[in-house]
């Protein structure tokens, strides 16, 4: 075998550097080709961007759950995507019922608010049960143990809901006031995208208020800084952890309803898996454990995912570029983990607490 490391030169570094150069080159060449060909107009770019932002705000809501839990327990709650699914999949029945009675279109905002509460509370219950049953007994064990448990929980939840609600897709009914588009500066933006973005924003502001301004928020921050000290200060750690899971679950469940308004293809038991991984990507992208980071990371990932295929892949002459949306997202995941594991707003939290 050849020698891996001479005094200065490291093969691993070299390979990673080559990778870095290749990616930058690919992005630059692809983008240049697309832009110079002028295939996509400015208005289309804006539309892609807007769609990306609304998709991204959903990722952000889910990502907050990952980040909150990681901030406190330093564990990746791999099953969080399924918490999102639980709310989204359950609330579709409520949406159908509201639609049947006509309530959905008579009082759309109230109806959606109720649906969000319903889904949020259900997901919250699932998240709290998950913590209580699967994670609490393993607190303090090495990191990979809860991760394997979480993977198990993820599949358990998927197939539980498959058993409960069936394996088919169910679509959210359309809400009339969310149809159509508004014209902003000559560019048509679908109302539903604005709705998604705004409602996600409201929820995020709510979370920010909760964490920064309330007593329980202060307790959460204290526990994430130092569990032992927090315990000595008389904070009930178990309760705070449960509350954190609950808040993350609530956000994920409400994201489920918002997502349902936005995506016509419907919901099923497997819908949480891919968004779950993507939201984790968003959380890492923003610096895991960092709340504003998760929000930014989510938006960023949504935009990249919307624009990337058209800008870079199409420019490189790859057919069916939009099929490869997920590939872009997962490539982002791997790249962030390789090059900047501390994320954009990196706190270097990972190293300190590792």
């Amino acid at each position, binding site marked *: 075998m050849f020698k891996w490391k001479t*005094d200065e030169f490291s093969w691993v570094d070299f390979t990673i550097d080559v990778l870095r150069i290749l990616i930058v080159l690919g992005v630059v060449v692809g983008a240049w080709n697309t832009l110079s060909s002028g295939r996509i107009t400015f208005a289309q770019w804006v539309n892609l961007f807007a769609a990306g932002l609304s998709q991204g705000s959903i990722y952000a809501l889910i990502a907050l759950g990952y980040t909150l839990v990681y901030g406190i327990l330093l564990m990746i709650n791999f099953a969080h995507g399924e918490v999102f699914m639980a709310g989204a999949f359950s609330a579709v029945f409520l949406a159908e019922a509201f639609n049947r009675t006509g309530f959905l279109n008579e009082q759309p905002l109230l109806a959606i608010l109720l649906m969000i509460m319903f889904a949020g509370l259900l997901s919250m219950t699932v998240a709290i049960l998950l913590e209580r049953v699967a994670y609490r007994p393993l607190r303090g064990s090495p990191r990979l143990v809860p991760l394997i448990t979480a993977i198990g929980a993820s599949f358990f939840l998927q197939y539980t809901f498959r058993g409960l609600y069936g394996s088919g897709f169910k679509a959210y009914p359309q809400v009339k006031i969310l149809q159509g588009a508004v014209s902003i500066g000559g560019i048509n933006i679908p109302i539903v995208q604005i709705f998604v973005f705004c409602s996600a924003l409201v929820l995020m502001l709510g979370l920010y208020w909760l964490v920064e301004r309330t007593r329980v928020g202060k307790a959460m921050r204290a526990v994430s800084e130092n569990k032992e000290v927090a315990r000595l200060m008389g904070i009930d750690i178990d309760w705070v952890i449960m509350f954190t899971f609950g808040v993350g679950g609530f956000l994920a469940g409400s994201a489920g309803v918002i997502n349902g308004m936005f995506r016509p293809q419907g919901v099923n038991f497997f819908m949480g898996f891919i968004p779950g991984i993507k939201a984790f990507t968003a959380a890492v992208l923003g610096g895991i454990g960092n709340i504003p980071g998760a929000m930014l990371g989510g938006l960023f990932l949504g935009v990249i995912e919307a624009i990337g295929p058209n800008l870079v892949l199409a420019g490189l002459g790859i057919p069916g570029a939009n099929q490869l949306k997920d590939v872009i997202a997962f490539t982002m995941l791997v790249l962030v983990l390789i090059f900047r594991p501390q994320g954009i707003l990196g706190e270097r939290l990972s190293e300190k607490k590792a």
Partner: protein
Amino acid sequence: MAEKSKNGQSRILEAKGMTKRFEGLVAVDSLDFHIPEGAIASIIGPNGAGKTTFFNCITGFYEIDEGEILFNGSRLHGRSPDQIARAGISRTYQNIRLFSNMSAIENIMVGQEPHLKSTWIGAILGLPSTREEDEHTEDRARELLRFVGLEGKGDMLSKNLSYGDQRRLEIGRALASKPKLILLDEPTAGMNPRETIETTDFIRRLRDEIGITIVLIEHDMRVVMDISEHITVLDYGRKIAEGLPADIQTNSDVIEAYLGRGAAAATAAN
């Protein structure tokens, strides 16, 4: 006074202007430092003085921000921990870090890594050279176990050993790489007086019988004063004194660092 060690040998380890920062905090501050070959040297200082950081810089766990570290005259900084280990430096840890689910003998066999040459292909094919090396490794590991007083305990999982045995096993593992320099991080921490004396004797034997240069971090002043030939005192990442045990004991800076200014004045007045 410390330019030449007792037996007049050359400097095995030398640091010039070594600095390590953590996000604004200077853990080791432009430290000049050297250890004569064949010495037993101690590093002391109050908690948080940067002693363990200093070890981590030498063994390559931390990259130093400024300055240089020389080992036998050749550069050490910028090398990876495994290269440094292969160059002949090994260490133990303040909170024992054995491979806890491996047996005692396996721990020592891993310690011999820098001298092993067999490859995975040889292992699969069962080449005679590989088998020979494995046998030799095991024999040497048993020898070392005997040397550190763990004869017959080789097949126990290291985490099932008693505390003192774990400390000794860790030293044995560090010795397995036949190092020229060994860094011991609080080797007598948590030991009772009898064990402390045994360990002190053991450390002295290491130097006298095998001729390894020893650097230790130690809190127990009796141990430090008893066996070191050279003491360096750190405080807030700076070197505040160095020299022979007798010099350090009366140094007012040192007393001040440990006991505060008033105490230093009082001692001076006495």
